[in-house]
C-alpha cells in the first residue's frame, strides 16, 4: 500500500493531488505524474515560487527552470533560464523525449520550445512588476552582490569590482542566506 506514491516539497496540495490522480486513478507512469504535478504548480503559481509572475530578477524579468528525470533509464531533460514560455516542466519533458541532450538554457531553450509547439508569451505580471518596483524603491535590497562598489548592502547598481577589498577577504566563506520558505529554489 506504500506504492504508488507521490511526494513533493512544500504543502502544494493540488499539485500532489493531480500527480496522484495521474499515477493512481489514470494508471499512468511516474514520469507523467511528476510532469502533471509540476504543471499544476506552474499554472497555480504555487507560493509565487513556481511558474510565471514570480521571483523577478534584477531586471524585472521572470525566467523558469525545470527538470524531469526517469529513474529507470537515467534519461532526463531540463531547461534553465527559460524565457517567455510558461510550461517549463513540459518543455523539459520534450528535451527528455526528443533530444539526446540533458539541459537547454536561455533564449535558445525558448527557441527549442517554440519549435516543439509551445506558445511564446510574457512571464511578467502586475504582481511581479510591483514586487520588482518595490525592491528598486528599497535601494535594491536584498541582493546577491558582494565585493563591489557602490556598497551593495545600501545601494542599487550598476556595480563594479571593489579593488580595495583584499583577496583574503574576498575568499571569506561566510555566507548570508536570504532564502526562506517564501523565497527558494
Amino acid at each position, binding site marked *: 500500500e*506504500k*506504492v*504508488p*506514491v*507521490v*511526494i*513533493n*516539497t512544500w*504543502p502544494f*496540495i493540488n*499539485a*500532489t493531488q493531480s*500527480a*496522484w490522480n495521474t*499515477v*493512481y486513478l489514470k494508471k499512468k*507512469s*511516474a*514520469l507523467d*505524474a511528476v510532469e502533471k*504535478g*509540476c*504543471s499544476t*504548480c506552474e499554472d497555480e503559481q*504555487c507560493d*509565487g515560487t513556481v*511558474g*510565471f509572475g*514570480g*521571483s523577478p*530578477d*534584477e*531586471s524585472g524579468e*521572470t*525566467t523558469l*527552470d*525545470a*527538470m*524531469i*528525470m*526517469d*529513474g*529507470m533509464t537515467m534519461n*532526463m531533460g*531540463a531547461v534553465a*533560464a527559460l524565457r517567455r514560455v510558461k510550461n*517549463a*516542466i513540459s518543455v523539459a519533458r520534450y528535451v527528455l523525449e526528443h533530444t539526446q541532450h540533458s*539541459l537547454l538554457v*536561455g533564449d535558445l531553450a525558448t527557441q527549442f520550445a517554440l519549435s516543439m509547439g509551445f506558445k511564446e508569451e510574457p512571464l511578467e505580471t502586475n504582481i511581479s512588476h510591483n*514586487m*520588482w518596483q518595490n*525592491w528598486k524603491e528599497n535601494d535594491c535590497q536584498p541582493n546577491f552582490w558582494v565585493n563591489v562598489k557602490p556598497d551593495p548592502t545600501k545601494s542599487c547598481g550598476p556595480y563594479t569590482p571593489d579593488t580595495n577589498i583584499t583577496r583574503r577577504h574576498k575568499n571569506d*566563506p561566510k555566507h548570508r*542566506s536570504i*532564502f*526562506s520558505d517564501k*523565497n*527558494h*529554489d
Partner: protein
Amino acid sequence: TIGMIAIDTAGRIAAGTSTNGAKFKIPGRVGDSPIPGAGAYADGSVGAAAATGDGDVMMRFLPSYLAVEEMRRGTSPSYAGELAIRRIVTYYPDFVGAIVVLRKDGEYGAACHGLQSFQFSVCNSQLGQVTVQTVSCV
C-alpha cells in the same frame, strides 16, 4: 520551487522540479533545480530525492544524489535526507533548505535546516488522501 518524486504502479520511479528561482537574482543566474543530483535525482534501483532552498549552495553539494546514494548503502530515507542536509550545514551554518527522500519500496522521509519546520505533501493508498506532513529541522 516544487520538487516532486513519484513511484507508479509498475514500480517505476521519476523525479522533477519546477521553479522561477530566487527573487531579485542577478540576470542569468540559475539555481539547483535543473541540475540532476542537486534539485532532484532518481535511480530506479534505489529511490529518489528532491531538494529545495538556497540553490546557489545546494548545487555545490548535490544533496539529492547524496541522499539516494546513502539509501543505496542501507540508510533510511529520513536519515539519508538528514545526512545530505548536514553535509551542507558543515560548510554553511546559515543554510536554508530541505529535502524529501523516497525509497523504492515506498518508504519516505524528509529533513530540513534553517526553517522553523518543513512541510511536504504526500499521497499513497495507505494515507488515502493528500496529506501535509511536517518535520522539525536538524
